[in-house]
């Protein structure tokens, strides 16, 4: 089981390229998802303070 993971990760030397691509995709997408949520919470907290 362990070595098949090893093969999957290494992919005869080209593995890091693929995983770095996946990592960059996840980072950029999560930034685009989280920023609106943070903005919404900020408005929510400000809104409640006014009431």
């Amino acid at each position, binding site marked *: 089981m362990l070595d098949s993971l090893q093969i999957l990760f290494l*992919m005869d030397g080209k593995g890091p*390229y*693929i995983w*770095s*691509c*996946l990592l960059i*995709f996840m980072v*950029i997408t999560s930034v685009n998802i989280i920023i*609106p949520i943070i903005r919404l919470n900020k408005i929510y907290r400000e809104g*409640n303070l006014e009431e």
Partner: protein
Amino acid sequence: MNRVWSRIKNWLIAMGSPPLFYRWATSSLAWLALLAFLVLSSGLIWGIGFSPTDYKQGDVYRIIYIHVPSAILAESIYILMAVSGFISMVWRAKIAGMLINSAAPLGAGFTLVALVTGSIWGKPTWGTWWVWDARLTSTLILFFLYAAIIGLHSSIENKTKADRAVSILAVLGVVIVPIIKKSVDWWQTLHQPSTFTLTSSPSMAPEMYQPLLVCVLGFYCLFVFMLSNSLRGEIISRERDKAWVKKQFFKQ
């Protein structure tokens, strides 16, 4: 049959008014996230994990399962923005302007993903980080178009004015994008006789091609989720002092 069609039409018209869209988005956000996660992860796992290795390039071609879908998505987000720009110019629909403002950062993000993965792909295959391939160059120009839209929108304070300026730019952009792609393709053949273009997907083996379709579908589901998420935030931030926002948003 036209009963179904009229229900779809009513749903589309309902989406035109911010409160109704906000209610639909809040209720179905979780489902959209789940759907996007399922389709996308199955596509990626199938593509990266189980599809056969390419005889020429070895395993590094698997980057195609991220690079191509994000490039396609960046293109279709721009077309979506142009359509909503046209709607906002002709019918002055407020939600269309908001849609552009929330879709632009997403489009820029996906274009960035396509660019970075394209250059990472170039390293093992051609030994350089950046190669002036026709498709990569037109994606780079698309990124500049997104930056122009975001820059113009943030530079105008009055949001309704900013929406109309940005919809003009989006409509103009969608006319120019095919011209740019054609001239860049032609420019590449002029200076370099056709080397290996980055992705000739139709000629790929079927088992490599099917996961790619699933990945593209997954990316579209992800975009629908991200768009409704950021459009929801945009509506609330734009209509804060309206009555329906106080009733629906602050009372949760």
